[in-house]
């Protein structure tokens, strides 16, 4: 195993009235894309800002590219690419001017023109930042993170607030960076994003990592492959009966619909339909999906990512 690009152990950080990070351990390997997945307020941003050297931890060890902030701050800054949540770049500068400004802070890196080409903003080269769309601004922020040719890239909620098309575009860029061999640490509260981009994820809740592994491992760990959702209008359902259907692991009611955690979809669905016919219940809605990281979070915490 190569030396870790980022190693965090027993990290703690408390603000006045809330513990943001509570004994976190992480290890990120060179060349991988690592995701910190969790609901808002789980401590993701605090964690990433401590790793970025912007926030002082209360205790714990942070080693970035084998160096520490206290001793190697200046050198580390040269080798990190950082994109913060909700930075608004100066509206009055053009795209090119913004990149030139950021480029001037780094010893090495691509030319401003190349950095702009990298995030596909050539057409907007001379446009004012204030006139860019949300997705374009986010791509510019990415370019600002790349101008130092970083070994390690920190992206804090890179696609939050973007429309699906802009998200997709940004994902393609991030996948491209991975192909370039950069190490990426990103935070997100979108499970599909983590699943798409990350080799490994850590699921965070209340300042701790409650699960770690590849998305596939994590999904496999809950022992459920599929989720079946259905509703029967206003009719009452007996959960006990549902749980006895072959292939169903557990059942629960949520917002008027029934949700079944299923291991064998091909057995469970016909059996469910037969059971509903036997009880004379009308099926008004039926959907299935493969288990996702969202389902992992639900099974670990009993809450959903978005409303946690």
């Amino acid at each position, binding site marked *: 195993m190569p030396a870790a690009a980022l190693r965090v152990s027993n990290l703690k950080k408390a603000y006045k009235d809330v513990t943001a990070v509570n004994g976190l351990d992480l290890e990120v390997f060179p060349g991988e894309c690592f995701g910190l997945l969790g609901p808002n307020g789980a401590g993701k941003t605090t964690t990433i800002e401590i790793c970025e050297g*912007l926030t002082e931890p209360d205790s714990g060890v942070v080693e970035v590219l084998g160096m520490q902030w206290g001793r190697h701050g200046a050198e580390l*800054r040269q080798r990190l690419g*950082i994109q913060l949540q909700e930075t608004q770049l100066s509206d009055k500068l053009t795209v090119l001017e913004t990149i030139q400004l950021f480029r*001037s*802070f780094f010893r090495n890196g691509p030319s401003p023109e190349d950095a702009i080409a990298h995030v596909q903003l050539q057409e907007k080269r001379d446009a004012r930042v204030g006139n860019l769309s949300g997705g374009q601004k986010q791509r510019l922020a990415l370019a600002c993170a790349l101008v130092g040719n970083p070994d390690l890239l920190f992206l804090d909620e890179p696609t939050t607030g973007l429309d699906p098309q802009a998200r997709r575009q940004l994902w393609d860029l991030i996948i491209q960076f991975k192909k370039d061999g950069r190490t990426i640490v990103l935070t997100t509260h979108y499970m599909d994003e983590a699943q798409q981009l990350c080799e490994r994820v850590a699921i965070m809740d209340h300042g701790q990592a409650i699960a770690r592994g590849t998305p596939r491992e994590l999904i496999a760990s809950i022992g459920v492959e599929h989720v079946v959702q259905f509703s029967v209008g206003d009719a009452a359902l007996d959960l006990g009966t549902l749980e006895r259907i072959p292939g169903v692991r557990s059942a629960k009611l949520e917002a008027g619909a029934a949700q079944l955690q299923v291991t064998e979809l091909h057995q469970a669905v016909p059996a469910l339909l037969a059971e509903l016919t036997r009880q004379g219940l009308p099926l008004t809605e039926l959907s299935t999906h493969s288990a996702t990281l969202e389902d992992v979070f639900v099974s670990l915490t009993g809450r959903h990512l978005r409303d946690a």
Partner: protein
Amino acid sequence: MRSHPLFQLTLLRFREFVREPEAVFWNFAFPLLLTAGLGVAFRDQAPQPIPVAAVTQQLAAALRADPQLRVEERTPEAALNLLHTGRVALIAEPGPNASVVYRYDEANPDARSARLVADRAVQSAAGRSDPVPASNALVREPGSRYIDFLVPGMIGMGLMNGGMWSLVFSIVDTRRRKLLKRIVATPMPRHHYLLSFLVWRLVLLPCEVGIPLGFGVWVFGVPLRGPLWQFALLCLLGALTFGSIGLLISSRARTIEAASGIMNLVQLPMWIVSGVFFSAERFPAVVQPLVRALPLTALNDALRANMLQGSGLGQMVPQVAVLGVCMVVCFGSALKLFRWR
């Protein structure tokens, strides 16, 4: 080609400034318009005759003999009406035994002058002759007019406004946008960021001072009697001092609203008491030490002494000391307090 971060940061200052037309207007055009307006309003002109009313033809004729009076002949009621509405300063009416009665408000300085002039005219018309012949020599030389007082004050005020607003708005807005935090996350040396404001202030200084100064000198003939290099030094000191105050104000504020509040609190007293539009000496003796300790008072006094009296720096030690101490204290505190996120 990688350019120097300080150059890029200064360029950022320049771009943010010129791409904000309001900033350019408030910085350059506004003080110019104000100076021009006040200069015209208070320009030297022959004193206007004082309007007075007379209720008899005889009195009116006597008063008309004096060019310093503009006389209206009216009935007593009409004259009283004019007096009460402020359109005349005084009424001359006949009294008992061929005497004259002057009706006027003694709290009105115009009316008191009118009383003296009118009485002199009436007495002359009645045949009085002056035992001592008298003539006038009028003084109207540059350096003692209102515009001469005003221009140094406008330069001082411009240095205060420019130094504080540009810095405070730029820094607080950068912090509010979380851009400050983002910039600090790069390898940029932090002192470059602060230094860029200093460099930008120095670039702007010749225009900021030169425009009102040139305007005053060429249009109104305001004198510049002191050594020019000392004048430049005073402007530089003033710019740095107000820049330091601006830096201190912006060192922690997170919103423009909070910063504007503090800035108004700091600037407003100086606009009023520091002798921009009228002399600071008009304030009571008890508050004079306080007024003198304000940096804008010190700067205005020093600029006036240089321009109008031709004094050297040696005669401005207290003023230079006030500015210097203020600068060092504010700059030092700002560096200690500055919130980089």
